[in-house]
């Protein structure tokens, strides 16, 4: 039986799907996402970015997702990605309760240079909990095609870097989808990784909440820009029988969310620079916004699990 604040969290809000979609495009102080029986409900955080009265993160397992730090980027869209990463870390440290773990969904660096990995690692030491990483395609640009990333973060992983672990009754699965690029098509996981995933899931009960994280969206957000994973549907098919599945991705530097049955797909904001909405520009590259608005496009995602009842609450907050 979950505690009272959990119940409130589940019951809060009665907005319909239309409102939910509206909220997903909103770049304000932050949005609290709730899932109840597969139906998402959302409401805005108050102007100070605080959780509403009666909702508390204390005493519950929660973790934070950060993404797309792009250390080494220095162009117009954000000349100071170090500073904005530090601000994101400051925001995580200021959460009302310490997260149990952090997921970084890739593009730690911009060009996979050793000094960029060094700088990022030094800054990320400021995080208040252990960090679990997956690489982005910007982290595998070294001569070794990702060797620098794996040397640093790949200990104990399988194949080209995939792995799974359990924490507080949640099964976490890290997938790699930044190494199989083929001309003219979206990226892929590959047969070996899909086989491993099927094997890994064999021991997981259908009542266990599952969190899958990978850099590029596993679902097709926008194919013309390569925002999807060609064989992602095969991975998703393996997850359908589970009661609570949350798929967290980065890559597209904006929040987009979708629910299919018991599966919630969510992409996080980056900490470096925004990118245009799917198809809203000629190309998906860095989007330059007025300097005083940049921080409203950058942010973090806080994910709270509600034990026993399976919905995960996703709180997206920006840096302002």
């Amino acid at each position, binding site marked *: 039986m979950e505690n009272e604040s959990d119940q409130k969290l589940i019951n809060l809000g009665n907005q319909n799907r239309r409102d939910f979609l509206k909220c997903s495009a909103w770049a304000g102080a932050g949005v609290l996402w709730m899932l109840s029986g597969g139906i998402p409900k959302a409401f805005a955080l108050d102007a100070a970015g605080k959780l509403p009265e009666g909702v508390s993160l204390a005493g519950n397992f929660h973790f934070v997702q950060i993404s797309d730090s792009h250390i080494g980027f220095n162009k117009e869209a954000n000349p100071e990605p170090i500073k904005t990463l530090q601000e994101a870390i400051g925001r995580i440290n200021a959460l009302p309760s310490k997260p149990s773990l952090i997921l970084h969904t890739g593009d730690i660096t*911009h060009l996979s240079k050793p000094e960029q990995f060094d700088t990022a690692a030094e800054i990320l030491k400021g995080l208040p909990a252990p960090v679990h990483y997956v690489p982005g395609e910007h982290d595998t640009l070294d001569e070794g095609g990702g060797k620098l990333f794996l040397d640093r973060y790949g200990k104990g992983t399988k194949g080209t870097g995939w792995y799974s672990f359990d924490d507080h009754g949640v099964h976490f699965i890290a997938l790699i989808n930044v190494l199989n690029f083929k001309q003219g098509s979206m*990226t892929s996981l590959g047969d070996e990784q899909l086989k491993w995933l099927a094997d890994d899931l064999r021991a997981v009960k259908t009542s266990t909440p599952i969190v899958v994280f990978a850099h590029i969206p596993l679902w097709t957000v926008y194919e013309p820009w390569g925002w999807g994973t060609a064989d992602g549907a095969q991975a998703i098919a393996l997850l359908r029988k589970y009661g609570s599945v949350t798929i967290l991705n980065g890559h597209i530097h904006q929040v987009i969310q979708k629910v299919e049955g018991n599966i919630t797909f969510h992409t996080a904001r980056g900490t470096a620079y925004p990118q245009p909405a799917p198809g809203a520009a000629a190309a*998906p590259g860095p989007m330059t916004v007025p300097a005083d608005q940049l921080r409203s496009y950058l942010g973090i995602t806080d994910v709270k699990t509600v034990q026993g009842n399976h919905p995960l609450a996703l709180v997206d907050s920006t840096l302002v």
Partner: protein
Amino acid sequence: MKTMYALAICTLMLSAPAYAEDSQISIKDHLFTPSTLTISTGTKVTWTNHDQDPHTVVGRSTQQPFHSSALDTNDTYSYTFTEPGTYQYFCTLHPMMVGKIIVTAGK
């Protein structure tokens, strides 16, 4: 006056492709421009990245295996084509970005 000189030089370059040793391909807005380039053997092709995003230029031919490292903004990559043929290439960071070089024999 400077503009006039620049224009004159540009016009000369444009009007004399048959004698040009080098060809240029621009990378901008996630597109290779021109996307298809026809050259004769011995021509050096230079790609220049004008995007804020990094890109790569990776050929698929085993006959002429050209392969750039990641090109940051304003970085260039050059390759001289010595064998006639049609060479497809793409950006491994953004695989929807594709281009083609058609190399014809002799001059």
